[in-house]
């Protein structure tokens, strides 16, 4: 079973306790009513879907119930690192060559 480190529980927990919550770092516009249809489509529907490193939101649903961010490799399904919600995108990833 995949073990995922919850930054709030400060330990690795089994994947069954977690829920994926989509791509991370998608900023919601402060003026949503003023968004053009194209911009709204990009914000609401269009996701990067990369092959390789992806930044995602996860929730420790059956644990502390907190949302946090995770860096995952979509090819190997390996979790590179996790960090608390609200923290900036990590500039350097451990164990990942550029």
């Amino acid at each position, binding site marked *: 079973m995949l073990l995922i480190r919850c930054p*709030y*529980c400060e330990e690795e927990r089994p994947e*069954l*306790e977690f829920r994926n919550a989509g791509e991370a770092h998608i900023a919601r516009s402060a003026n949503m009513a003023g968004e053009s249809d194209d911009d709204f489509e990009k914000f609401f529907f269009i996701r990067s879907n990369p092959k390789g490193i992806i930044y995602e939101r996860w929730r420790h649903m*059956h*644990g502390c119930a907190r949302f946090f961010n995770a860096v995952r490799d979509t090819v190997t399904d390996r979790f590179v690192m996790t960090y608390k919600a609200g923290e900036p995108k990590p500039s350097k990833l451990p164990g990942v060559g550029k």
Partner: protein
Amino acid sequence: MAKAAARKTTPAASSSVERRPALAGRSTTAAAVKVEVLPPVERVSLRAPEASAAALSKALGVTLPKKPKTSASKGGRTALWLGPDEWLVIDEAGNDPLADCAGVAALHSAVGISHRNIAISVTGAGAAATINAGCPQDLSLDAFPVGAASRTILGKTEIVLLRTAADAFRVECWRSFSDYVFTFLSEGSRDAAV
């Protein structure tokens, strides 16, 4: 007025208002494990920012734990850390923790959930193996020592797990799931005995 009258009535005085907890009296004994339904207790779901924790701890008489996966117990009252600002308070002494929280001016949310949960005790040498039949967490004494508490899953349902002794656990689950959880643990206890 009717409410006040009902409060004064003791359960022994009137059989028509007798409290019948779910699963009352059910128990299973396998070779190495005993699974029992625990008597009703008072429970509070407590949410509060860190700044309110001290005042609430004082009112409750038990220090709210700040470390993940821990619990604190004093005078029959146990506070379980569930999240960074969330605790489950269990009172087995018959006092009402909700009333104690009501007098606290510091920002908090206390919700009485006494009847929402059913507690099941799993005791015996095979207690950890029984729970591990459906719970993926590491329940070895190193990873989950006595006093450790965590919200987790058992089979398809969410439970709150508290280790009360090296070979004893308290499993808290929602009332409507209690039949499933009890049966699951009973089956698990049979496997643990093998």
